[in-house]
């Protein structure tokens, strides 16, 4: 467990440095074993625990992302993309290797994660902003901007359960982009919302890039990957297959997928 997360070094050249990282999980769920088995068959249960096969999610992955760059990550389901995001977000720790991230990391949450259906748009926005790391006072100061950007109209004071899924996504996106991230993590989020809002999001990301915000963008939507990224990494079975310019990597990925 040699992970290190620093929130200093804004002057560093790289915002994200991944150095020879390997991450494994126990296959089969520990949760299924339960306390009963531990008490009734302690020896056998501990042995089962020890022998749970390890599944290698990432193996010997290394790359760096310069400040202000956007790295697109592509690959099939189960290739390790979400694990990579988890490591950069600081919620997972590598088995070996080092993960260094400089600055405030902000994940764009999937639809409504961390929202409560009974709370209003305003209440949810405040709670989410604080959970994402912004002081409460700051969230309140930016509340108008957040709500404006999300275009919720009269719904800001209604409970979230009345929102359409597009509105929930807009609010989530809006909070995340207003917490001033240094590193923004995105997992398929741009596939939600209507065409106009998607355009607004892409513009916002463009603005972020100009301001020096670093982005890690995981997606299956190749068009968006091409549009947003400066560099693309193709993950295959937990290893980096190719790392290079977007058009080159996406081309190779497409050719391989067709074969």
């Amino acid at each position, binding site marked *: *467990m040699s992970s290190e*997360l620093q929130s200093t070094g804004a002057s560093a050249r790289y915002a994200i440095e991944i150095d020879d990282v390997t991450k494994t*999980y126990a296959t089969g*769920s*520990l*949760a*299924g*074993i*339960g*306390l*009963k088995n*531990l008490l009734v068959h302690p020896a056998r249960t501990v042995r089962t625990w020890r022998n749970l096969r390890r599944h290698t999610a990432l193996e010997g992955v290394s790359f760096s992302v310069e400040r202000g760059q956007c790295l697109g990550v592509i690959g099939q389901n189960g290739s390790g993309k979400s694990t990579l*995001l*988890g490591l950069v*977000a*600081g*919620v*997972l*720790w590598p088995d070996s290797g080092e993960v260094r991230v400089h600055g405030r*990391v902000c*994940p764009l*949450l*999937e639809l409504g*994660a*961390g929202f*409560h259906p*009974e*709370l209003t748009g305003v*209440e949810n926005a*405040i*709670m989410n902003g*604080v*959970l*994402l*790391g912004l*002081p*409460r006072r700051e969230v309140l100061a930016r509340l108008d901007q957040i709500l404006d950007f999300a275009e919720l109209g009269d719904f800001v004071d209604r409970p979230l359960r009345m929102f359409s899924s597009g509105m929930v996504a807009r609010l989530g996106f809006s909070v995340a982009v207003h917490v001033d991230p240094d590193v923004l993590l995105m997992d398929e989020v741009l596939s939600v919302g209507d065409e106009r809002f998607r355009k607004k999001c892409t513009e916002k990301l463009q603005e972020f890039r100009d301001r020096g915000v670093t982005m890690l963008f995981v997606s299956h939507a190749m068009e968006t990957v091409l549009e947003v990224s400066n560099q693309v990494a193709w993950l295959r079975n937990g290893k980096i297959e190719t790392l290079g310019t977007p058009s080159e990597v996406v081309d190779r990925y497409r050719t391989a997928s067709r074969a």
Partner: protein
Amino acid sequence: MPHWMDLLRVLVGKELLVRYKGSFLGYFWSVLHPLAFAAVFYVVFKQIVRLEVDHYALVLVTALFPWQWLQNSINASPSWFLENAPLIKKVRFPRWTLVLAGALTDMTHFLFAVPVILAFLLFEGFPPKIEWLLWLPVLTAAQLIVAFGISLVIASFNLFLRDLERLTTLVMLIWFYATPVLYPADRVPEAYRALISFNPAGALIICWRSLFLEARVPLDSLFAAYVGGLLLVGFGAYVYRSLQWRFAEVV
């Protein structure tokens, strides 16, 4: 102000808002539960078993409200991390705030219910005492650390041993009868006294009851509650620190 205080503020705010949203019923329910229990136990033990205890209704009410807080916090603790799985999987923030926010929410419900206890005392002819107000924060803080310590242990372990939740409910039931809630502590035979001395909930209940009925707090019990609470928080912190790096994998 450290960020975890902001986190606690919004998390507790969320729980309270959800509970009391738009109606008085939320408050009604948090008071009704212990009152209904008090009524049932009063009928069973005073009218049917004919237990000879002075002010038995007050003996019950002064203990059942604080017990309810402890029980609610601990019974809810297995789900604090599970319920927030999407956040734990994606966002880096001090996860123990979820558990402390749970204990603080139940504490708030308890504090809202204190006037009901006082109403009972006044109705029974007990004169209001300044000690009630002075000791309230001291006892509340003691119970908060006990509730938080135990909850932190259970919430952390429950991610790895999911049936801990069932065991928790069972243990709480046994613990309820092992704690002098339904009976005054001085009725406990000498042979069982040790059980109560090593029970932080017992120490707390003794303090609460004696504060409300006698306007004083036995310092040995108060000391026992604080020592027990601090040991539990220490153990909880140790368990949490050892396990929390794997939370996002198993939740």
